């Protein structure tokens, strides 16, 4: 295989925040993303504040409590995206695969497309190129334009990494002309072709097109500079100095590749025998760029070399001497930097400024960077690898902080449980000694008796039973009169008795008529009252049952709580120890990476130092011979 590694110029800031941005875009579409469950809304509240740990916890709690009832797709999509952003790749792919495979989610095409897209990115992060390509190709067209461009960019990257140039180039034609993603894809494709030494004309044309775009921001301007640099490289390789100079001159003097451009320009001019111009370019490089920049180091030794070519040996000797002194200073400074990286100060610098911060944003992870770090390791400090390691370190620190807080609150939970237990004991004793329970039972019996009486009245239509107090008194009087009238012998009945009988019948009839007429109303009112009574007693019964249940189940629940607390305390201790170990490992990794990057730089300076010393000695010798 020609290339053991294909290095892609990654749109770094976007790579790390890509899925977050996508999710945000999705979540901002309120119509598509309506919050139908409070628990999902709570998770979004944390998510929008960048609190991914809390947001994931919200969703996990909601899943456990089964409080995501109305909308299952969007919370699942959010969870998968959050896992991906939080570096839990395996969990993330589990979530997306479940979402895509299960009918239970009944996912819409939009949700499916987003899930395929995020799953593809997940696979890419795990170097699973085949799976990444397949997932990204399954997107059917409902992504937003910005995300669609990014998807095509990732596909181009995947194809390049799989050495499938035709498919990679095919993606370029599917992208929008003015898309930043297309610019990156074009640059990556062109540099891939140059490296592979295949289709050189096409690669050159891609770079030329890129160098001519109307760059509106610093990101686009850097891409244009890089395209010109690559074109200059091709020209130099083809021994076309003039063309290389033209490309170098198009590069900005205050951009990200200025040093490289000035160094290259000097060499192109040197090869074109324009020695003075080449010295001017390198002097410009030395005077305007950071002293520790390796391009500057190269220029420091190149300038006397050209003076030597110009037969100006005194000047060359003087400049070689200056270069040697400069290299010595740098070697001493890098020694100090080694000590600094091995010190606790370095670890303090990469530790989070505020322990309660969740997932600090990338590229702002390191606070108050040591000036020597900037001077000698600026590329490393701004590299994705370093920042990802620091971010990971800070995330572990946050885990430790969370575990500390839980450990701190465990005695409170234990105390709360003891309080509940003692309250329970007090209440139990009090309740058992109280005759309220007995009274409640009596009331319930009386209510039941009353209910059966009402039912009997209703079934017998006994309207007399619903007589009011006064009416009952009348009934009694009429009954007494009736009894008295029965005792009057028929032969002794006179007109007064007859009138009395008539009045008795009349009044009795009137009373009966009134009771019969008002019976439905009175029965309804009575039933209403008894229903209310029934509800109240049912409520009372339910409370009694609940009380009984609490009394019965409380000891078991307390024991369960006890076990849960003990179990969690153990888990906290175990995890704290793992966090401690991981922190040590991560500190070692970051230190080793920094030292390794610094060693590369130091070796280079040592090499320049030796070369300058050798050149100086050689020049002395030749001057001596001449004398």
């Amino acid at each position, binding site marked *: 295989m020609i290339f053991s590694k294909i290095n892609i110029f990654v749109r770094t800031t976007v790579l790390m925040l890509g899925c977050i941005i996508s999710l945000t875009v999705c979540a901002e579409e309120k119509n598509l993303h309506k919050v139908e469950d409070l628990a999902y*809304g709570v998770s979004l*509240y944390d998510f929008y504040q960048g609190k991914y740990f809390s947001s994931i916890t919200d969703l996990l709690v909601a899943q456990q409590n089964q409080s995501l009832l109305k909308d299952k797709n969007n919370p699942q999509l959010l969870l998968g995206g959050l896992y991906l952003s939080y570096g839990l790749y395996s969990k993330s792919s589990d979530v997306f695969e479940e979402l895509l495979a299960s009918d239970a989610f009944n996912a819409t095409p939009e949700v499916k497309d987003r899930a395929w897209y995020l799953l593809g990115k997940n696979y890419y992060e795990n170097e699973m190129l085949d799976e990444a390509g397949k997932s990204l190709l399954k997107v059917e067209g409902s992504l937003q334009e910005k995300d669609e461009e990014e998807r095509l960019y990732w596909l181009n990257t995947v194809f390049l990494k799989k050495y499938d140039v035709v498919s990679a180039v095919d993606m370029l034609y599917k992208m929008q002309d003015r898309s930043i993603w297309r610019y990156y894809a074009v640059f990556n494709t062109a540099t891939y072709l140059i490296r592979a030494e295949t289709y050189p004309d096409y690669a050159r044309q891609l770079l030329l097109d890129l160098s001519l775009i109307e760059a509106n921001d610093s990101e686009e301007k850097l891409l244009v500079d890089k395209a010109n640099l690559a074109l200059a490289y091709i020209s130099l390789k083809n021994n076309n100095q003039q063309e290389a100079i033209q490309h170098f001159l198009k590069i900005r003097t205050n951009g990200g590749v200025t040093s490289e451009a000035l160094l290259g320009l000097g060499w192109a001019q040197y090869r074109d025998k324009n020695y003075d111009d080449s010295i001017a370019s390198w002097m410009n490089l030395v005077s305007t760029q950071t002293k520790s920049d390796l391009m500057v180091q190269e220029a420091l030794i190149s300038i006397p070399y050209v003076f030597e070519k110009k037969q100006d040996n005194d000047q060359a000797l003087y400049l070689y001497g200056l270069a040697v002194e400069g290299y010595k200073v740098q070697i001493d400074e890098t020694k100090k930097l080694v000590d600094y990286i091995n010190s606790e100060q370095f670890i303090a610098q990469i530790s989070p400024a505020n322990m309660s911060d969740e997932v600090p944003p990338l590229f702002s992870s390191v606070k108050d960077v040591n000036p020597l770090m900037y001077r000698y390791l600026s590329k490393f400090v701004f590299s994705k690898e370093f920042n990802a390691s620091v971010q990971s370190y800070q995330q572990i620190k946050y885990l430790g902080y969370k575990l500390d807080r839980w450990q701190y609150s465990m005695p409170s939970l234990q105390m709360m449980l003891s309080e509940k237990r003692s309250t329970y004991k007090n209440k139990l004793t009090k309740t058992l000694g109280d005759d309220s329970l007995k009274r409640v039972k009596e009331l319930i019996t009386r209510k039941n008796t009353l209910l059966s009486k009402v039912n009997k009245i209703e079934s017998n239509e006994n309207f007399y039973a619903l007589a009011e107090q006064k009416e009952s008194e009348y009934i009694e009087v009429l009954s007494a009169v009736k009894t008295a009238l029965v005792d009057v012998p028929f032969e002794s009945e006179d007109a007064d008795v007859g009138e009395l009988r008539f009045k008795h019948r009349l009044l009795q009839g009137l009373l009966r008529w009134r009771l019969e007429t008002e019976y439905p109303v009175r029965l309804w009112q009575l039933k209403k009252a008894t229903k209310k009574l029934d509800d109240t007693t049912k409520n009372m019964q339910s409370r009694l049952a609940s009380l009984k249940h609490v009394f019965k189940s409380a000891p078991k629940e307390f024991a369960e709580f006890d076990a849960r607390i003990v179990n969690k305390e153990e888990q906290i201790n175990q995890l704290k120890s793992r966090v401690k170990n991981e922190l040590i*490992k991560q500190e070692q990794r970051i230190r080793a990476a920094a030292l390794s990057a610094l060693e590369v730089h130091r070796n280079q300076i040592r090499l320049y130092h030796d070369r300058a010393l050798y050149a100086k000695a050689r020049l002395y010798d030749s001057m001596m011979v001449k004398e």
Partner: protein
Amino acid sequence: MRISTLLLVLFGLLFNQAILAEDKQADETQGVNREIEELKNDVLELNRDLFILEEDLLFSANTQISVFVSVDVDDLFELDSMTLKIDDKVVTNYLYTAREAGSLNKGGVQRLYIGNLTSGEHEVTAFFIGKGPSKRDFKRAVSKVIEKTENAKFVELKITGDISKEQPDFIVKVWE
């Protein structure tokens, strides 16, 4: 010193983004990353369990009441702070940061309060303080009597917009 040095430098710049680790180191890195991934996941699961444990212990369902705040209004109201009273007692005062207010505006839902209530009727009163239309100071209160049963009670305080009146509207919604 040769032109090849320069070509190498340029070549490195263009095609070899700093590769700090060799394959073996890459494997080790992957191993460490896997360990970190497992650790993160284990802490997340523990955090979930402890969260539930705490809630079960402190706010059991038969007494629990949770009050949430949500915003579904554009430009008509900027929330600065909230005061929540239950049965005329202030249970929480909350001052929003710009980040939190922004999160609410995007569709997030904040759990403003969680507490315990006995069964029966209770009055929930919320005071919304912020900037209304034309950035004028705005304070509004809404009240609702709720019936606490044996199930956990969820109350949402929702800020919506009445476009016809160009005024924000405040709703108390009880979730079943």
